[in-house]
C-alpha cells in the first residue's frame, strides 16, 4: 500500500497493469501488450522533451528495451518503494486507476531522455512546431486552427523551465495525476502542484502577450 496523501489515507488499491505485468514476467513475449499500451505515451513524452522524431524514436526504443530486460526486477522495486512510503520518504498516493508499472516506465523514460539530452547537447534541436506545422493538402479550417492553437500552446510551454515543462507534458499529454507525476519526477505532490500552477500562470501570461 502506498503512503497516505496530505489529504488523508485512502484504502489500498491494486495496480491496473498487474495482470499484464505478471503475464509478461511469466512469458516475456507477453510484454507486447504493455508495449502497445504505452508506446504513444512514452513516445510523446520523448518527443515533447527532445523535439525531434528520430531522437524520440531512439529514446522510446531504449525505454522499452530497458523495461523488458528489467521487468523481473520491477515488482521488487515497487515493493521497496511501497515500504519506503514514496520517493524520498515523501507521502505519495496513487489514484484509483494508477499503474505502478507506468510510473516505473516513465522513470526509465525520464532517465533515458536525460541521458539523450546530455549526450546530444551539441546537436541543435529543431523546434517542435517545425515538425508538425506544415499544412496538409486537405487541411480544413478547424484542423488548421487547432494546429495553430497547439503550436501557440507548445511555444508557450517550450519557454517554461525544464521541470515545469516536464510536469505540464506529463499532466496534459500523458494524463498523469499529480501523485504519478510526483513519483516520476521524484518530487512531493505539493511541489508538483505548485509546479503546475506556476506553469499555468506562465503560459497564461505568454498567451496574453501573444493575443495583445
Amino acid at each position, binding site marked *: 500500500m502506498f503512503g497516505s496523501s496530505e489529504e488523508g489515507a485512502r484504502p489500498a488499491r491494486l495496480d491496473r497493469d498487474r495482470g499484464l505485468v505478471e503475464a509478461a514476467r511469466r*512469458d*516475456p*513475449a507477453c*510484454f*507486447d501488450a504493455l*508495449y*502497445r499500451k504505452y*508506446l*504513444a*505515451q512514452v*513516445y*510523446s513524452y520523448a*518527443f*515533447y522533451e527532445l523535439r525531434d*522524431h528520430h531522437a*524520440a*524514436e531512439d529514446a*522510446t*526504443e531504449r525505454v*522499452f*528495451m530497458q523495461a*523488458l*530486460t528489467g521487468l523481473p526486477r520491477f515488482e521488487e522495486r515497487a515493493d521497496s518503494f511501497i515500504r519506503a512510503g514514496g520517493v524520498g520518504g515523501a507521502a505519495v498516493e496513487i489514484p484509483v486507476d494508477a499503474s505502478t508499472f507506468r510510473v516505473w516506465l516513465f522513470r526509465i523514460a525520464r532517465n533515458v531522455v536525460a541521458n539523450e539530452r546530455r549526450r546530444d547537447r551539441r546537436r541543435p534541436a529543431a523546434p517542435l512546431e517545425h515538425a*508538425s506545422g506544415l499544412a496538409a493538402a486537405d487541411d480544413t479550417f478547424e484542423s488548421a486552427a*487547432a494546429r495553430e*492553437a*497547439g*503550436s*501557440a*500552446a*507548445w511555444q*508557450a*510551454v517550450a519557454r517554461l523551465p525544464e521541470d515545469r515543462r516536464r510536469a*505540464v*507534458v506529463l*499532466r*496534459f*499529454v*500523458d*494524463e498523469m*495525476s*499529480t501523485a504519478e507525476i510526483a513519483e516520476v519526477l521524484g518530487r512531493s505532490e*505539493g511541489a508538483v*502542484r*505548485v509546479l*503546475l*500552477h506556476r506553469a*499555468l*500562470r506562465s*503560459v*497564461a*501570461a505568454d*498567451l*496574453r502577450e501573444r493575443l495583445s
Partner: protein
Amino acid sequence: MLGGASRDARRTERYLDGLMEAEERGAAAAPMDLDLDPAVLLAARELRAGLVRVHPSFRFEEGLAARLAQTAGEARRARNEQAAPAAASSIAPFRAPGVAAAGDGVAAPAGLAVVGEGVAAPAGLAAMRDSFAAPAAPRRLSLAARPSRPLVVGGVGVASAAISIGAVYVAWRWSRASQSPMVRAVRAGRSGRTYASGHGRRAAVLHGILGVMP
C-alpha cells in the same frame, strides 16, 4: 495551514482533474471555477487542446515490436536453458519391459518422449524444450548412451556370492575337528564336559546363575 500559493495550486489541480474528467465523459462544457484566475483557466484549456499525444510511425512501431519480440525470445530461451540441466539430471531414463527404443521401430510409451541423448522426459517438458531448441533434438535412443545398469546388477551378484562363500567357510570351520589340544580343551569346556558326570551343561548353567563354584 496552507499558504496562498498552496491553496491556489490545490484549486488548480482540482480544476484540471475536473477538466480531464469532463473530457473523458464527453461533456460539452468545461467545468468552471470562479475562484480561479480566468487567465489560468484559459491557459489550462489551451494546453489541454494544444498538447496532443503523438504516435510514432507504424513502421517504427512494428519494427520495435519485432525487436522486442526477438529480445523476449532470447530471454525465454536463456531461462529455459537454465532450467533444462536441472530437469535432465532429475529425470531417469526408463524403458518398460517389452517396449523397444524409438530406434527399434517401436513407438515409445504415450507418456514419455525421447529428449536429447538417451533422456526420456514427460511429453509436456519435451514439447517445451523442442519449441525453444534451435536444431531439432535427435529422436533416437542410443543403446551406447544408456546408463550401465548391468554393472549394478553384476555388483549385486558378486556381493551375494561373497556372502554365501563366507557362510560356508564358517560352517565348515565349526564342523571340522581340530588337531590342536588347546582348541579341543576349549570346546570341551564349552560343551560342559569338565563337570562331574550327571550334571552336564544344565548344572553348569545353574551354578553360573547361583554363583556356586563346583
